[in-house]
């Protein structure tokens, strides 16, 4: 099969047990939305009812491999998982690496759409053209490591790749994650609970086919030159050596490392958690790579001494080290590895899970809960508390049942002022980025259709941390002077470019590191590889428009559900509490600053200023006019 022509979709209905394959070949839609994330969003909006409850069995969950996944394009092995989030009650895109996407492509499928709910736990078994729904009752209750081992043993094939949920997904923890290759997680938004609600424990895939491209010589020439660029990139080498927490100690020194539930930007001793420190101490045993990625930023860590001796897991990544480390005042990386292991096995988003613990500790400080009520000693820096609460959340034991609901619902139940230290917006806990000293991030987090999170844009370039970053900011804004993260000018332009290229990258299966974090693959490169692979001649402007339409479509999904610009906010703490850092002009994300940047952003997009909804004329201009009647039954577009 050739990338995009056609897009092969496997439909599985767990209620009716119907299995069918669709060859989607509407070239007009494909040219507008690409495949992967873009096409999945289009299919969701046009074929399914987004207004139904997230746990309604008619809501689909879509596994969308990247268009270029399965080829030798570097860092192209990623898969988007799309569903309605039970945490945010919004259309939710999440994205994962590992090896599931490459195997699914080898089996001959681009997308899997699962609808319905099985009568009892099942897994979907795919081996090339043979697809079946299998009984998984004996696997229910297993963790992610056990289920991978069990199904591979059952199949007598170690090469089977799986996407799975652990006990947290079964227990419908609202931030439970979906795992591939055991330790890679489509972490955010509660996709694990969506699978758990469908009684879907796993999807097992084995593929013996392969992927072809339309113009092999042209493709391999473009892909090879990107490999050369990657291998000669200093950032890639550093990331490969020390992983995503390579800059943690630097952030700490700049007082921008979210610590003590975003009350400070500095945590004494947190330098122990940095990538170089963990490599040098021997905690990180080796690197792990996603499908066809030259970077291998993923870690594999083993605790060799202390009370958590014997724990092992993929990770920990930067976000986990901040969520379970500096965020709680934990400075022993072995404790973070233990908590990370639980999250890997039970299947939970480490960002949200770590945040729940931070929030609960503050609840005690404000007199809203006691140690006796919680069943653990609530204080900053207590290793046992972190590990035990993580387990209790996954199992919904005791206070864990409240925490499993996420900070938005939990703070409503806890009452008092607890919403003030619930560092969430739209029902999603904020990623570990100090937005009070990085204002493109602040804007990007506020307008992000899924919540305050870095994985929809990742505007690292605004900090001007490298020659490439400064030159990118100049290309977007016209001047190098905007490569300063505490400047509020031109943030809308910076955010929109990053969102467009991020969405395009997701649709192609390309990781964020090449495009938005390390700048060794841009829209010109993507246009070239996508053209060579598919045979469609696409320009850089056309591929960026694919990204723009994806972002616009996802915004339309927000509008359909009644969300407006009033919902485009940051967590209370970030907007109302001051946090000094060593960056000039940092402080807080005031309403005034945010609203001004939001005005710029909506104007740039051609969305209306009152609600932040795409205007009809904007949709027509983008060639998305056919979507106007789709949403007009529910809302009136400006």
């Amino acid at each position: 099969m050739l990338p995009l022509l056609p897009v092969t979709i496997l439909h599985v209905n767990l209620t009716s047990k119907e299995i069918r394959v669709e060859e989607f070949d509407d070239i007009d839609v494909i040219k507008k939305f690409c495949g992967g994330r873009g096409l999945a969003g289009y299919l969701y909006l046009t074929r399914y009812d987004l207004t139904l409850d997230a746990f309604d069995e008619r809501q689909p969950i879509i596994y969308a491999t990247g268009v270029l996944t399965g080829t030798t394009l570097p860092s192209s092995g990623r898969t988007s998982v799309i569903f309605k989030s039970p945490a945010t009650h919004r259309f939710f895109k999440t994205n994962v690496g590992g090896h599931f996407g490459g195997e699914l492509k080898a089996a001959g499928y681009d997308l899997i759409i699962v609808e319905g709910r099985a009568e009892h736990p099942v897994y979907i078994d795919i081996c090339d053209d043979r697809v079946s729904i299998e009984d998984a009752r004996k696997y229910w209750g297993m963790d992610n490591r056990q289920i991978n081992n069990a199904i591979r043993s059952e199949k007598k094939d170690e090469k089977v790749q799986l996407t799975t949920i652990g006990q947290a997904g079964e227990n419908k923890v609202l931030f439970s994650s979906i795992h591939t290759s055991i330790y890679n997680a489509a972490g955010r938004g509660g996709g694990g609970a969506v699978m758990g609600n469908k009684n879907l424990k796993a999807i097992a895939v084995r593929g013996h086919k392969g992927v072809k491209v339309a113009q092999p010589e042209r493709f391999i020439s473009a892909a090879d030159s990107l490999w050369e660029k990657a291998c000669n990139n200093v950032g890639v080498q550093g990331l490969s050596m020390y992983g995503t927490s390579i800059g943690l100690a630097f952030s700490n020194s700049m007082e921008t490392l979210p610590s003590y539930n975003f009350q400070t930007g500095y945590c004494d001793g947190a330098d122990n958690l940095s990538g170089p420190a963990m490599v040098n101490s021997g905690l990180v045993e080796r690197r792990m790579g996603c499908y066809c990625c030259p970077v291998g930023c993923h870690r594999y860590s083993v605790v060799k001494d202390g009370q958590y001796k014997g724990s092992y897991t993929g990770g920990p990544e930067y976000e986990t080290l901040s969520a379970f480390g500096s965020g709680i005042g934990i400075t022993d990386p072995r404790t973070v590895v233990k908590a990370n292991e639980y999250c890997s096995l039970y299947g939970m988003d480490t960002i949200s899970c770590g945040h729940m613990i931070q929030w609960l500790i503050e609840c005690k400080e404000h007199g809203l809960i006691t140690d006796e009520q919680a069943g653990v000693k609530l204080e900053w820096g207590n290793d046992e508390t972190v590990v035990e609460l993580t387990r209790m959340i996954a199992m919904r034991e005791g206070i864990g049942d409240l925490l499993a609901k996420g900070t938005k619902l939990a703070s409503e139940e806890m009452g008092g002022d607890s919403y003030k230290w619930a560092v969430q917006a739209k029902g999603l806990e904020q990623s570990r980025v100090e937005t009070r000293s990085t204002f493109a991030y602040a804007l990007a987090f506020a307008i992000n259709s899924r919540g305050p999170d870095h994985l929809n844009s990742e505007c690292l370039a605004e900090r001007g941390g490298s020659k490439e970053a400064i030159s990118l900011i100049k290309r977007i804004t016209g001047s190098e002077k905007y490569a300063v993260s505490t400047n509020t000018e031109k943030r809308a332009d910076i955010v929109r470019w990053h969102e467009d290229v991020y969405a395009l990258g997701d649709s192609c299966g390309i990781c964020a590191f090449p495009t938005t974090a390390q700048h060794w693959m841009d829209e010109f490169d993507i246009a070239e590889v996508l053209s060579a692979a598919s045979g469609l001649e696409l320009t850089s402007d056309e591929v960026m428009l694919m990204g723009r339409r994806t972002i616009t479509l996802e915004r339309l999904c927000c509008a359909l559900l009644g969300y407006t610009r009033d919902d485009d906010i940051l967590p209370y703490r970030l907007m109302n509490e001051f946090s000094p850092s060593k960056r000039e002009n940092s402080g807080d994300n005031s309403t005034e600053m945010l609203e001004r940047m939001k005005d710029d952003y909506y104007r740039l997009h051609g969305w209306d200023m009152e609600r932040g909804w795409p205007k009809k004329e904007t949709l027509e201009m983008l060639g998305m006019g056919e979507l106007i009647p789709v949403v007009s039954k529910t809302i009136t577009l400006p």
Partner: protein
Amino acid sequence: MKRINIDPSKCVGCRICEITCSFHHFGVFSHELSNCNIDSEDALGNFTPLICIQCEERSCVHSCPVEALSIDPVTGAVRCDHDKCIKCGLCIKACDHKGIGFIMLDGEDRIAVCDLCGGDPKCVKRCFIKAITFEDDDAVCDKENSL
């Protein structure tokens, strides 16, 4: 002469070697149609590239009952004459390195073994992490002895 050298401790399991090999030999990105394989134990983070290392013993060549296997005098790679091969699998059993195996091509089993891409192995070029290298025989022997 140069030989393939493997360092499993470096391998990150990305499988780029597999599909680079299949593309170069068969024009398709497929980890099944490959002369190299990654033996993956992802739960424990263990990955081992399995590929012919042009060993001294050449057990595969000696085990072949029909002399289908031979050694390329220029590159030192093991060659398979597929017309002679009777697909008995004795070479696979004889190889201690798991460097030779069957692939399924057009519905038929076929022996697959690294041909060093004629002396310029493509997988080595792509292995960013240098888990698979192509080195002078003496250097490889020194490394093996030091182990």
